[in-house]
């Protein structure tokens, strides 16, 4: 690659940055150095708060001017020009034309009330000039390059009429429309399904290679780095702690943080082994301790009566007739699903967005009407039932922001009868203890906790009534890798201690491989394959399972530069 090209596209040297809202200025970047050669795809990896996005935004000075204070001696040069010395007008010309940015959520970057055609043409004409016809022709060919099946139709659509993957493709088309020298992709594929992510990353990569465009790819996912990037920078608390060829770093990480981050990834080590958490690794002298002591193999007894069973579960959403408000015959969102969860085991339900896994969960707990049977311990399940509790994906939304934590975790207990404040607080403290939170924190409100702590609170609430079965709806998807590791550890510990059964809904095969005993793959409302985790993942039978497995960005390749499947 052109890592040693004479003139780098981006060169950042000793970039320190303080952000100040009030008088207290906090250093968010410390002596960051970064170099991107022409045509190079460089990854910037780190967890939230590591400073990766701030670094990227600094390249275009997109941080609020009064808030960001650059340190002495900081130098940012993009295409040989000194960004920190540039005037505002000059910068504006550079943004979009020479450097473009793709963000995580295209819905916020696209104007919702303007058709794609106008948005694309406007960008092209602003930076390149030319006639509307020329801009339109270019837009069409760009969309075709992005393998959008019907470019004309996409052009005539509003953003909300396109799927997430299509929107992100439009964003990439827009980013390439002015032939920029550098594209900054800030978690550009994080919100997408794995199969779509694989396609989008491949398009980005191919297009960058064809045009000789440099790419700065910001991500938290080492798999993505491995499959897409030439070189990588690892950031931790505002510093670059390691840099090098992507393949080298993944094979032999030098810095303890990188090692910790890699070992926090589920799906690499032994299934159900405790995952290394970053905090633990950093505390213990920087040497992540390998605790992958082989666990006693879990013997699953398939003769035991199931704790949860569904028979031919079908969910149909009535489509309201526009004129009369009557229901017309709808397509089932869940189509005849039969599942079995046995006591103490984890069944993972895996599928991409829109496959019907949320509908299935909602049907289980009676939030949407369904056909077919749901049996709990052999009898029809009627919620509420203290034996069955649910944990939601986003702890921010599942905890009432106005309530103190002790009230939140003991809320289910109030159903059985009134309990005094003192007793509830005592129970809350015990629950906090069980999920690894400090008992002193029970008076705090949700916003005073971090994301991982909030999810612990959500788990504590579910545990308050001694359930036997937890329905976990993507419980770690909204969390950082190291925090995800902590929550997965917690869930496994609780399962071992209390013999809980889990129905674990997820889109993440790595997580599932780590935690699940059995696995059910769902596509378009139907379970296409089911079996014990190791077997299904080792020898998938259904084509969709194979597609899904192939799309997961992997770390286990020998060569980071291997071409992605076409």
């Amino acid at each position: 690659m052109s890592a040693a090209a004479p003139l780098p596209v981006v060169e950042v040297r000793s970039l320190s940055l303080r952000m100040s809202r009030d008088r207290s200025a906090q250093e968010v970047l410390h002596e960051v150095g970064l170099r991107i050669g022409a045509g190079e795809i460089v990854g910037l990896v780190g967890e939230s708060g590591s400073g990766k996005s701030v670094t990227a935004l600094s390249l275009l000075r997109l941080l609020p001017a009064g808030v960001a204070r650059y340190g002495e001696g900081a130098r940012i040069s993009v295409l040989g020009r000194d960004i920190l010395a540039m005037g505002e007008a000059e910068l504006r010309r550079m943004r979009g034309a020479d450097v473009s940015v793709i963000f995580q959520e295209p819905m916020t970057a696209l104007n919702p009330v303007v058709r794609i055609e106008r948005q694309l043409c406007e960008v092209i004409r602003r930076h390149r000039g030319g006639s509307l016809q020329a801009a339109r022709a270019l837009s069409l060919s760009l969309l075709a390059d992005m393998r959008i099946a019907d470019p004309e139709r996409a052009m005539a659509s509003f953003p909300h009429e396109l799927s997430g993957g299509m929107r992100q493709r439009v964003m990439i088309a827009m980013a390439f429309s002015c032939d920029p020298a550098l594209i900054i992709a800030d978690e550009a594929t994080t919100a997408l399904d794995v199969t779509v992510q694989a396609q989008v990353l491949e398009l980005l990569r191919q297009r960058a290679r064809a045009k000789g465009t440099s790419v700065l790819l910001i991500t938290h996912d080492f798999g993505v780095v491995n499959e897409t990037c030439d070189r990588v920078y690892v950031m931790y608390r505002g510093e670059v702690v390691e840099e090098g060829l992507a393949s080298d770093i993944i094979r032999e990480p030098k810095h303890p943080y990188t090692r910790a981050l890699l070992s926090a990834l589920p799906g690499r080590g032994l299934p159900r082994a405790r995952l290394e958490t970053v905090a633990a690794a950093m505390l213990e002298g920087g040497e992540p301790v390998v605790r992958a002591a082989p666990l006693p193999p879990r013997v699953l007894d398939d003769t035991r009566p199931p704790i949860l069973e569904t028979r031919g579960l079908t969910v149909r959403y009535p489509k309201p007739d526009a004129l009369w408000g009557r229901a017309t015959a709808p397509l089932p969102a869940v189509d005849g699903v039969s599942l079995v969860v046995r006591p103490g085991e984890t069944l993972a339900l895996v599928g991409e967005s829109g496959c019907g896994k949320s509908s299935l969960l909602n049907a289980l707990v009676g939030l949407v009407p369904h056909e077919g049977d749901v049996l709990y311990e052999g009898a029809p399940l009627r919620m509420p039932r203290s034996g069955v509790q649910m944990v939601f994906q986003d702890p921010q939304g599942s905890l009432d922001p106005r309530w103190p934590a002790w009230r939140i975790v003991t809320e289910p207990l109030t159903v059985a009868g009134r309990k005094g404040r003192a007793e509830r607080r005592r129970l809350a403290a015990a629950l906090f203890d069980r999920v690894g939170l400090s008992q002193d924190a029970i008076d705090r409100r949700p916003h005073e906790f971090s994301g991982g702590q909030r999810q612990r609170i959500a788990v504590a609430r579910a545990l308050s009534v001694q359930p036997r079965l937890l329905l976990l709806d993507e419980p770690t998807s909204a969390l950082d890798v190291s925090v995800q590791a902590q929550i997965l550890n917690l869930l496994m510990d609780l399962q071992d201690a209390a013999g809980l059964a889990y129905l674990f809904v997820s889109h993440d095969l790595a997580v599932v491989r780590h935690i699940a005993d059995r696995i059910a793959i769902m596509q378009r409302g139907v379970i296409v394959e089911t079996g014990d985790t190791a077997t299904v993942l080792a020898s998938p039978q259904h084509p969709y399972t194979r597609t899904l497995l192939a799309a997961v960005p992997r770390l286990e390749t020998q060569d980071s530069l291997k071409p992605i499947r076409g």
Partner: protein
Amino acid sequence: MRPVAQASGVSRLWDAARRALSVAELALGIALFLLVLLLALFGVALQTHDPMASDLMRRFLPFGAEGHLLGTDHMGRDMWSRMLAGLQWSMACAFTANVINLFIGATLGLLAAERPGWTRNVVRQVADIFQAFPSLVAAIVVVVVIGDGFVTLVLTLGFLSWPIFMRVVYAEASSLYSRDFVKAARLAGVSRLAVMFGHVLPGLRASLLVIFALHFAALLIAESALSFLGIGAPLGVPTWGNSLAESRQYVLVAPQLLLVPAGAIIFTVITMNVLGDGLAAYSRRRGRGIEP
């Protein structure tokens, strides 16, 4: 981290100024409101004369005349005392009507948000009808049919102008009902009422307060308008609307008679608006703290 548009020094100053202004607005709103409230509650003690006592020898006295701070009207009654009496009447009327509005609107709004389906549709249709019908005209009809008086006036205003409460409560409660914490509570078996009082109503408090203040101003105007038309307060009762109506005939002789009730109405309405806006700005800022 989202890119924020480059903020220049000027816009930062503007930001800071706006923050300070919103605090000042709330403080000013509360101060003015307390003043109005105290005058309404204890204004009787400040009355220098009986507001009904006429003295035909001392008619049309100007502002600052001896013994009459704001002069006298065409019957020689003390304008200052009449203004205070009118304040009491107006505040009582607007407050009671507003409480009725709040109660009906919030109940129906919560009901509609909690039970989507035909309950919601019926409630929304009824609210639409009430809102589409010009409420002043409706009030006139009711008062003409039933007759005037404090109770009629309050009930009329109270039962006619609740849709604004219903709409706000419905919109906000619907969004709260779709949140996962409500789902979690329902799945745990928490009763409908407990969810309503524990999770939904506390979340509505801020906006209800704001609407209450702003709608209070609207009701003050409606009450005065009805009295001015001669169908609100019974004739002779010293309300601002009546005073305005009476002063109309003497605009050329004694224009100051118009200024006292008009000024009082404007002052009170502005007070409630400042208070409402201040509360809105404050709860917006505080809301950001709760849900970052």
